[in-house]
């Protein structure tokens, strides 16, 4: 085990440096790059805390959509199989089964990459 600070704590520290001191000391395109770097550190900080649990939940949901035993294959392999089956189009009910699982998976990705993005669900514009 590495010593404290944890990866998550260090990423927050780097983000603070970028967003507070470096942002004020730069301008133009470099300032934009610093802002982006700060935001990426915040994303990685959340990923360090929740990434493993999110991947496990994603694998579980994909396995369930595909009718496989959970834990037998990783997320990438399961995603690839789901894409192949959706492309083949042989199982008419697959799309309906996949939709709620993918919504939950993407919600989990957003909790790391862009918290709050899922607050807008387009209801008003689907009528």
């Amino acid at each position, binding site marked *: 085990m590495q010593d404290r600070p944890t990866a998550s704590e260090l990423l927050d520290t780097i983000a603070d440096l970028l967003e507070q001191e470096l942002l004020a000391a730069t301008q133009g395109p470099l300032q*934009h*790059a610093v802002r*982006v*770097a700060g*935001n*990426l550190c915040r*994303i990685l900080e959340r990923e360090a805390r929740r990434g493993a649990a999110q991947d496990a939940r994603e694998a579980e949901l*994909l396995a369930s959509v595909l009718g496989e035993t959970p834990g037998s294959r990783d997320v*990438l392999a399961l*995603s*690839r199989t*789901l*894409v192949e089956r*959706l*492309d083949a*189009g042989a199982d008419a009910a697959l*799309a*309906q089964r*996949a*939709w*709620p699982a*993918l*919504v939950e*998976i*993407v*919600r989990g*990705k*957003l909790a790391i*990459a*862009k918290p709050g*993005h*899922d607050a*807008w*669900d*387009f209801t*008003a*514009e*689907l009528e």
Partner: protein
Amino acid sequence: MNPFEQTRDGLAAFLAKVWGNRVEVENLSIASAGARRRNVLFDALRNGERIPLVATIIPNAAVQIMPIEVEAAHLRFAEAAGMPAPHVHAVCEDASYVGGPFFVTSRIAGETIPRQVLRLVEKNPPLGPRLARQCGEALAKLHAADPAGAHPRITAAGADPIEATLRAVEALVRSLLQPSPAFTLALRTLERERPPPPARLSVVHGDFRNGNLIVGPDGLRAALDWEICHVGDPMEDLGWLCQRMWRFRNDALEVGGFGSRPDLAAGYEAAGCSFDAARFHWWKTMGTLRWGLGLAGQAKAHLDGSVPSIVMAASGRRVAELEWDVLMLLRRSLA
């Protein structure tokens, strides 16, 4: 001579040749300097008259999407159709003046940065619905014009732009660095629910959105950035304009974060075109999928070394936002 002076003197020499007068260039400033194009603002002085202009320069002809004279022809086509667009004063294919081919257009005052546009609307609330309506009118004027009058080298997807778009997007989905079941689900659903080919083809701007509009207190003054203008389904432009990505957090205002769909559609129909809600929804969903694939493509361009940039890298972590948006837009079909 530094590049700044070179651009200034090059513009003066070119305009003097075109206009047959002595021309001086003043107040030169670089408005934007991307990898594919540079926008330079300047005043030309001719016989004591001061003319506010913009030069759009392609610094590297190898990366231009369409030849400069074709893009200039699209601007002229739009202006002739009655759509607000910058007036083209001159086109120069000779790269020796300013280091690349360029065109010179009138400079139109107003806001172009999305958040500044939204701030303008915030200060003057009636501007929002007016702007949405003007966007509808402007697009209707462009779409009503006969595409036979466009430049012969305009990109055209054939008689069925729906099919052409599906095939292009399928290729992009296949080339993703990692599989996206959400995007595959979107592609296959859009394929199953595709509308028939449009009754008539139009010249389509292709990137008409908050960010490519010049807006003043009176409303829409011009549409910019015509480099992906093509012949296609007119509803493509309306769907693209209404993507969530161009609302800049004003999610409830479907049109660019400033207006509502009924205002947009009313303007479009008042100017003589018909708004097709089902086709609009299809193109809006397709546009969302395409933008998601575009972001994934930016991350890929960073990772393969063709455009190394932290901004491009960060785009990869924005893909989930578009996966969410496209899944929500598919809800009527799948949930």
